[in-house]
């Protein structure tokens, strides 16, 4: 599973423990801050470059924390963080990041804080931490206290951190201040980590309801189900299987000049049941019906599966198609199929017969045809 963003609040709680004095609050809540400030108030939803986007307010008085968030709520943000402001000079700012790599933890460090490191590779020093000896080297060369590096490594070890970027980092009198910290954790490790849980993962700003529905469905099965809505009024719809095969098919559409017409990208794989495939397919069909494109093609395609059963998964797709057949036909939809794998012959035969009966048939190919056959035909139809 991919790496996911932890809230800045939870990241700092893990790294600094009780020494951290920030407070997290949501829309409608009033944070309890100690002292008169001034404070920094920020959106805490994993957004990059908050300063540029105006999602960060400096020099806020303790009584103004809530009003500082009003404009952000209007933009759909709901989770915020307030921290005491640290008076410092810009020259005190530094950049540091830690990332889990194949053979250890890679550290990138720059003397200058607040920079985009991709744009300034010359200013970045790289270290690789593989053991205790390496910690001393990094500490000596960067001036970052040994104990702080240890606590970062402990978070990588116990809390399954995958990436930590502190930009800027300020060190005053040997004491460390994380003005901004972004953490990616390994979502596969949720079961093993104690310091964070699903509720500490940042909520992405507004998802398409169909994406949200598939995401909820995916959480209930060991199979893989993914959906991204790309162009809601596109004409080319995908019901693809396999992480790699789905890209090959989408590539073909781009190569034939139809990349902008792709309405959705996604894939099902890992042996979903008939019922799971049915529920997944329905979400794609609902997208198709909502599209304003005058003519649409549905590509049901994938590679030659290792173990995903073609008959079973096509059974689920046919169940969903049965519900939507009339509406799809009315929307000028043609269906193009290419698939191989266990029980291929039976699965394809059932699909072919069904599509013909419902007058939705474009073409049906099995493993003897190239993986791109169905998408090629679909594009020919859309261009005709």
């Amino acid at each position, binding site marked *: 599973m991919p*790496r996911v963003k932890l809230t800045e609040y939870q990241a700092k709680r893990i790294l600094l423990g009780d020494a951290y004095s920030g407070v997290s609050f949501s829309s409608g809540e009033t944070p309890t801050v100690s002292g008169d400030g001034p404070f920094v108030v920020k959106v805490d939803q994993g957004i990059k470059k908050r300063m540029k986007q105006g999602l960060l307010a400096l020099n806020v008085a303790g009584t103004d924390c809530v009003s500082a968030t009003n404009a952000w709520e209007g933009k759909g943000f709901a989770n915020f963080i307030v921290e005491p402001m640290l008076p410092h000079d810009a020259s005190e700012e530094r950049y540091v990041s830690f990332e889990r790599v194949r*053979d250890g933890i890679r550290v990138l460090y720059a003397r200058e804080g607040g920079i985009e490191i991709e744009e300034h590779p010359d200013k970045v020093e790289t270290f690789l931490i593989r053991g205790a000896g390496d910690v001393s080297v990094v500490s000596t060369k960067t001036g970052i206290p040994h104990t702080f590096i240890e606590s970062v490594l402990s978070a990588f070890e116990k809390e399954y951190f995958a990436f930590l970027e502190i930009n800027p980092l300020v060190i005053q009198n040997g004491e460390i201040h994380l003005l901004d910290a972004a953490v990616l954790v390994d979502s596969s490790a949720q079961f093993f980590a104690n310091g964070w849980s699903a509720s500490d993962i940042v909520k992405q700003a507004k998802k398409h309801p169909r994406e949200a529905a598939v995401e909820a469905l995916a959480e209930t099965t060991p199979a893989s189900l993914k959906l991204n809505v790309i162009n809601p009024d596109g004409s080319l719809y995908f019901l693809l299987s396999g992480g*790699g095969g789905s*890209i090959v098919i989408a590539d073909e559409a781009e190569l034939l000049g139809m990349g902008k017409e792709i309405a959705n990208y996604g894939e099902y794989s890992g042996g979903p049941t008939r019922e799971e495939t049915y529920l997944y397919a329905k979400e794609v069909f609902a997208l198709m019906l909502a599209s304003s494109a005058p003519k649409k093609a549905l590509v049901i395609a994938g590679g*030659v599966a290792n173990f995903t059963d073609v008959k079973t998964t096509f059974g689920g797709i046919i169940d969903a198609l049965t519900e939507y057949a009339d509406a799809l036909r009315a929307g000028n939809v043609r269906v193009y199929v290419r698939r191989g794998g266990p029980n291929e012959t039976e699965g394809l035969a059932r699909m072919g017969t069904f599509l013909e009966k419902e007058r939705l048939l474009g073409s049906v190919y099995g493993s003897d045809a190239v993986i791109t056959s169905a998408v090629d035909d679909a594009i020919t139809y859309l261009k005709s």
Partner: protein
Amino acid sequence: MKSFLEQVRAGEDGVLVMGNHPRIIQSMLDFDYLSGKNAPSVRALITGNRKALKCFWGKKEILIPCYANVSLVPEERAKRVRWMLNVQSGRRAFDSTVSFFEAFPEAFGGTIFAENVPEKHATELIARYGATKLLSGPASVGILVPRALKLGAIGGVDAVQIEKSHLTLEGSIAVVSTSGGMTNELIHGVAASGKGVSFALAIGGDRFPVASLSEVLAVIENDPHSKALAYFGELGGVDEYEIVELLKSKKFTKPVIAYIAGIIDEAFDEHMQFGHAKALVARQDESARAKREALRAAGAIAPDTFPEFLAAFRKTPGGDIVAPMGIADDLKSRRESILSTREIINVDTAPEYVKNGALVSQTGSFSRNILSALLARKPKSEVTVAFADAVFSLLIDHGGAVSGAVNTMVTARAGKDMVSSLASGLLTIGPRFGGAINESARTWNAGFASGVTASAFVEQETKAGRLILGIGHKKYRIGLLDPRVAALSQFATLLKNHPRYDFARQVEEVTTAKSGSLILNVDGIIASLFTDILSECEGFTDAELKALIDAEFFNALFIIPRTVGFISHFLEQKENDEGLFRLPEDLLFTRKPEK
């Protein structure tokens, strides 16, 4: 680097499956069978809750043994294990992989099927096994060496797919892919081009595959059968630059045909996360186009379209393959049974009992035949048969006062039939009456194996508030010994060693010091001596004894003879026919309800 492939082709194909995935395992057996092997590559499964998995070997059904953990795999099954197939969940993949390699340090490698293995676990596996093993995954569909080894779902799970993709024939193109589905698409494409695969490995779409691309390429470079490499990669990550480096430094010298998927990413405003964890462009050099161009610059064939990529297979140096088809069709008609059993006795023939008007003396006795049926092997020792015979004879009855006999008689007097009356008696058998032999066997076996002293053992059981089954009698005590126990204990003199019996006697010494009635009872002596006899005279291993105990075998030593006793009581009641039995009121203590 590793000559694994040559060793595998020479027959080193033993697989231990961690977890259970019946369809994948069946496909491995079909591959083995269609490749013409004599025996399945899958030696055993490590999985709970079952002792065997039923599979087809050709059209015939076989049982593959399952064990709860690696330490229980018997030596003859373990000795040729070279590979691990790990089909456990992402959470358990790390622990189970470590337990496999700890038990089989000489193993060549394996494959981890699960997605969602934590990154930290993957990097830890790299640190432990990356340099010495060929371990594909996490999120790998497996490793394939045509005709020799199919480790995982790779190449398909249908017998027809196995045949159609030429998996049982040695070819010349090595296939490597990050994506599991595309591994199979490439294998299929190689076969469709008229060529065959020499070796295939699905690296897995996770961020940290244990077997890195460079390591897999080194295996292929050193494999004389592999004449070219067909590679499928995706946008995201920089692994393909490893191929570029190897080509430039001439460390990989065979033709490379590569397809890097993900040009579609250029159609979107922002980089998108595709299906695999790694499939996200974080830096410019991770784009499909950049990687494709770098590969071309290093001399690889890296076409823009997938059909062009497939067409390039034809131009590789290795020879064509002509595959005989239709053998797998034969496997389509097979039908799975729904229950497994064995032939308990030979039902097709019968011995000659009478010849020329005279009795023929028989080699088998009833006791001997019962033992053969129960244990599924013929007894080797006369001691075993004699002991069973003694037990069967002594336990037929122990008077009409015991609870099972009372129930049989009461039921018979209620006018019920033989089977009902017998069942009523049999259903009384349990931990307090007759059914303690098995638990007693467990006690002596475990007590002796644990090495604790008898007094420590008694202390521990007393503290836990448990009764020691096999100790204590309502009637007999020190000074009034159970004659059955005295008679049976003589069997100990026929054995060289009798550790369980000794342990039982030592326990008795401790318990009788507390109370004279806490003697070794008839259940206890049967349990201790029969486990010792099976071990010494019949060669049962500890694991086999434990399996018998888990199956409650030792209680059969009571149930079988006592069935005869109960029927005798039933017949007696029918003969006397005294009418319905009713308990006299004065023998009941009846508590009145509170007012």
